[in-house]
């Protein structure tokens, strides 16, 4: 079986960019001090993590708030670059990283479908062919022609998931956004993902819902304190994780 995603000793630091908002003048007149500040004051979000995800696996990434899950997905999606180590991705990534991510608030739902599809790496023709299917899946009705800045969170999640899920994903990245959908739509999404799973699509899911993990994922990667704390079958890692929070 071939590899879909591989992290080798990946570290990610965030500098405290707020120094930069001190402005150009501050930068030019305090140059050496400035460089020292930037170097010293970085924040390590992930420290030398390694894992391999094979094609067709469905993996949950779990951990408490701020542990680095979204950062990990960002690197898989290629919008963030690691400071150390290697990230290897094999296949087209369909990321659902954040509500409204990849969409422009001023465009209508329909316009956003066309733009987002192309930004995700498909051709305009491919998007056009699937357009009706996406709109139908979203169940947004007439709202598809409204600017998405007027959408509720759930409507936004519907639109985003419908685009990604109907454009033949190869590697599906989902960061929590289903939580805002109503029960009906959540169920529909989970079913859709389950069917992708049987078709051999790689699924990487970040969620705080133990139910979703259990329903969909065979494997869990638990990130804690910027490192991988546990990586194994859901049946082993998930109970440990819930126990950790229960106590």
């Amino acid at each position: 079986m071939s590899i879909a995603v591989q992290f080798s000793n990946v570290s990610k630091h965030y500098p405290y960019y707020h120094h930069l908002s001190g402005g150009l003048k501050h930068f030019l007149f305090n140059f050496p001090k400035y460089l020292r500040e930037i170097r010293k004051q970085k924040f390590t979000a992930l420290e030398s993590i390694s894992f391999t995800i094979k094609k067709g696996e469905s993996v949950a990434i779990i951990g408490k708030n701020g542990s680095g899950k979204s950062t990990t997905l960002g690197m898989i999606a290629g919008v963030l670059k690691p400071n150390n180590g290697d990230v290897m991705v094999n296949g087209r990534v369909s990321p659902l990283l954040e509500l409204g991510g990849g969409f422009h608030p001023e465009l209508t739902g329909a316009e956003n479908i066309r733009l987002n599809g192309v930004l995700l790496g498909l051709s305009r023709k491919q998007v056009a062919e699937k357009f009706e299917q996406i709109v139908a899946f979203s169940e947004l009705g007439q709202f598809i022609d409204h600017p998405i800045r007027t959408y509720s969170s759930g409507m936004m999640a519907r639109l985003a998931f419908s685009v990604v899920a109907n454009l033949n994903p190869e590697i599906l990245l989902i960061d929590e956004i289903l939580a805002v959908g109503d029960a009906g739509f959540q169920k529909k999404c989970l079913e859709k993902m389950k069917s992708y799973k049987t078709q051999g699509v790689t699924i990487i899911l970040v969620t705080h819902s133990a139910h979703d993990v259990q329903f969909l994922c065979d494997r869990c990667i638990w990130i804690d304190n910027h490192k991988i704390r546990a990586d194994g079958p859901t049946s082993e890692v998930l109970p440990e994780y819930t126990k950790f929070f229960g106590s």
Partner: protein
Amino acid sequence: MFNTQHIADLLTELTKKELSIRYKNMVFGYLWSIASPLAYAFIYFFVFQVVLKIPQPNYALFLIAGLYPWQWISNSLGQAPTNFVSNSSLIKKTQFPRFLIPLVTVIQDSLHFLFTIPILILFAIYFNVPPSADWIWKVPLIFGAQFLFVYSLHLLIATLTLFFRDIERFVQIFVTVAFYLTPVLYSETMIPERYQNLIPLNPFATLLINWKHTFLGIDLDWGLVGFSYLWSLFFFVVAHWIYKKLSWRFAEIM
């Protein structure tokens, strides 16, 4: 993944996005791009011809021959500081070549400029300096240099503003200063002898003088054309070098 066909698709979709965000009404946007330089030309005409009696023949034609190309420059540069920021939701969460965003903006402003050329032709005919067949190659020649220059400067400003937010305020002042230091309202021949050598050092000036020569039926100064291209290439290299160093950080600083 990012082959030519896909880049073309991205350009199309990003252009459509710009069109529906910026010009809710296309016709109105076009009329505006024609009318606003004309309104300025009217004011400048009054100040410099009627009041100050600048010794410049065909001053109205002279003004709009400079104000239309300048409008392109100032529109494109004026948007540069906010261009990446106002597309942050796209940049933060999807991977695509970020330089396409400035490129799309500059393509649109350049098209607006091209659409103002018919007005220039009308003026030229009215003032008895009718367009010559040379325009066929002169306009694309100067257009190419200006496109490269404006795009590069836009990319540079847009990139740096993400890291130094206060650049936004400098840009406004910078464009205004550049406007008055560039022969738009006056002719380069009016610049005192001892400052003449400085003209090639101002990339805006080299471009604007070339435009005026083209539109007013004067022979091109090949030295200045050369300088225009040198400046454009210089800024293109610098802008892309800095962009290449910094673009991978765009998503995390927004």
